[in-house]
């Protein structure tokens, strides 16, 4: 195995190239890093806002030793809500210094996105070098990883953008089995923990897929107590790092019965057709592969040139004794992920994992196993490029130009569609409302809590989450993977206006002041519909908000 300490200049060059690719592929996001978000292929900016808020919350709590970290200030008075969604603690910790340097939540989110795309490329580059691939092959594999279509289709779900921890687990596993030691065992454990602490779903999926593909890596010399001890150390390291998050998730899951039904999991799993669809038109027209009519539709075909090169990489690797195990491991990892993306369609496997694997029953979108298959394709593409370059070198210049063209095609064949950006809520547009909110010193509700039951219906609540660093008030509003079950009734009561029942329920939750968007309900309507349960106290017509006192439900008494 090659020395992982690759040439520093090469690494810097790769990082710069990948950053440029990331900026180009997300253009024009970089022009307004602090003020706009990209919803990716989704319509509303709800998830980017909620993600920006989650990163801010970790940065806010870190100087306090993460005190009250689980009790994030949404869905008041529900405790422990930060475990109800992807908390992204590793990204939160890594990004916290940006916040401390004065960057706003949106700027932090966008830097994390661009940094993650760049790191995606660097991780595959590093793995390629670890696997003794030539620098151009490793560079090409990294570039493929920066532009993976499945990642760019999910740009609006920032949790799903960093695939580098998945690659990190593959690298740590290969590094470990090459020459097992306690240090490498601990590193493998840390890599698994990093994957889980970046995105719990990816972490869980990666452990499953690597465990199932790992059989290739077992050889006679590894069956000895010393190796078992190193693996045990890795398990302890991973366990210690993951335990606080996993236990909180388990407690929340047990207390509130958070679980996905099989019907829900089926909706969130891939249909075979999805594997024949691309989110955008690809450069090489390919029979049977069609472009999704809407880029937001599940589309998992990774690209014809990439697949061709990956296949070449597998054939090339399997013909070499010193490569076959590595290639077979990565290929099996991708194939296992491909199958598991089918979710309950593969009924016996789904039932087995749902029963045996903690957390499996909580996963809603099993099609995201497909992301791991794409990671495998990116790594195998690097093998293919290595083989292609080797072959082209023996065949003269025209062959080399042909090879170079194919590699470039593999990188850009599914260039992400135009990135839509949405202007994020600015404190300047709500300055007086925010000043009033700060002065209340108590939890608040910003109405409407939601306008409908889709993600778009929560965009306004998510916007108030982004502004939480400004107003500093715990809110009933919120957005999360799971919702407190008792909130549903409150949402229903307040769906068609501030009904008396809804306002009384707010009061019982300890809310004595609410802010109402005037264009949703003006003063007369709000007071009338609440049948006197709301009393107007202030308003800011130029900002479009009114504030009310809750006179029912015991909130202010």
């Amino acid at each position: 195995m090659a020395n992982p300490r690759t040439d520093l200049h090469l690494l810097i060059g790769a990082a710069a190239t990948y950053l440029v690719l990331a900026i180009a592929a997300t253009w024009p996001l970089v022009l307004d890093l602090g003020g706009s978000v990209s919803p990716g292929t989704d319509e509303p900016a709800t998830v980017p806002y909620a993600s920006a808020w989650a990163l801010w919350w970790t940065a806010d709590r870190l100087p306090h030793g993460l005190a009250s970290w689980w009790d994030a200030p949404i869905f008041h008075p529900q405790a422990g809500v930060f475990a109800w969604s992807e908390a992204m603690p590793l990204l939160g910790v890594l990004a916290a210094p940006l916040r401390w340097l004065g960057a706003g939540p949106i700027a932090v989110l966008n830097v994390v996105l661009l940094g993650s795309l760049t790191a995606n490329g660097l991780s595959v580059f590093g793995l390629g070098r670890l696997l003794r691939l030539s620098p151009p092959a490793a560079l090409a594999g990294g570039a493929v990883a920066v532009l993976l279509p499945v990642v760019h289709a999910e740009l609006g779900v920032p949790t799903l953008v960093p695939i580098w921890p998945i690659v990190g687990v593959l690298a740590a596993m290969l590094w470990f089995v090459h020459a097992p030691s306690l240090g490498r065992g601990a590193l493998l454990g840390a890599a698994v923990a990093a994957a889980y602490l970046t995105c719990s779903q990816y972490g869980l999926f990666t452990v499953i897929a690597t465990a199932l593909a790992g059989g290739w890596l077992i050889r006679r010399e590894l069956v000895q107590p010393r190796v078992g001890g190193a693996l045990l150390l890795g398990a302890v390291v991973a366990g210690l790092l993951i335990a606080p998050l996993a236990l909180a998730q388990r407690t929340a899951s047990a207390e509130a019965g958070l679980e996905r039904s099989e019907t829900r999991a089926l909706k969130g799993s891939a249909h075979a057709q999805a594997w024949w669809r691309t989110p955008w038109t690809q450069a090489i027209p390919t029979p049977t592969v069609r472009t999704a009519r809407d880029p937001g539709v599940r589309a998992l075909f990774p690209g014809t040139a990439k697949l061709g090169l990956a296949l070449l990489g597998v054939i090339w690797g399997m013909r070499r004794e010193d490569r076959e195990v590595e290639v077979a491991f990565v290929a099996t990892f991708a194939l296992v992920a491909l199958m598991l993306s089918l979710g309950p369609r593969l009924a016996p496997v789904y039932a087995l994992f749902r029963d045996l694997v903690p957390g499996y029953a909580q996963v809603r979108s099993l099609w995201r196993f497909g992301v791991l298959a794409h990671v495998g394709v990116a790594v195998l593409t690097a093998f293919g490029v290595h083989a292609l370059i080797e072959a082209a070198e023996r065949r003269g210049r025209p062959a080399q130009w042909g090879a170079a063209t194919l590699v470039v095609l593999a990188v850009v064949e599914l260039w992400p569609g135009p990135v839509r950006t949405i202007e994020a809520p600015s404190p300047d547009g709500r300055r007086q409302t925010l000043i009033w909110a700060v002065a209340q010193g108590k939890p608040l509700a910003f109405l409407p809590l939601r306008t409908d039951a889709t993600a778009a219906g929560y965009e306004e609540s998510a916007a108030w989450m982004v502004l939480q660093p400004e107003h500093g008030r715990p809110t009933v509003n919120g957005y999360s993977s799971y919702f407190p079950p008792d909130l549903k009734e409150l949402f229903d009561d307040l769906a068609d206006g501030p009904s008396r029942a809804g306002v009384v329920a707010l009061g019982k939750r300890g809310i004595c002041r609410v802010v109402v968007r005037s264009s949703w309900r003006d003063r007369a309507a709000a007071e009338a519909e609440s049948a006197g349960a709301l009393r107007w106290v202030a308003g800011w017509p130029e900002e479009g908000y009114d504030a009310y006192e809750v006179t029912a439900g015991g909130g202010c008494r």
Partner: protein
Amino acid sequence: MKKLLLALIALSALTLTFTVGCSHVDDDDSAEHNMDHGDDDDSSMSM
């Protein structure tokens, strides 16, 4: 031997995916939206 085993794994995976994966056919691909959040059977959202 290793080549044969990998070929077998690949064949099984691809066959399963493109046969079993076609069950529960839904011609309307809007049913397969990446971000199909919404109030559903377990009143939960996607993230």
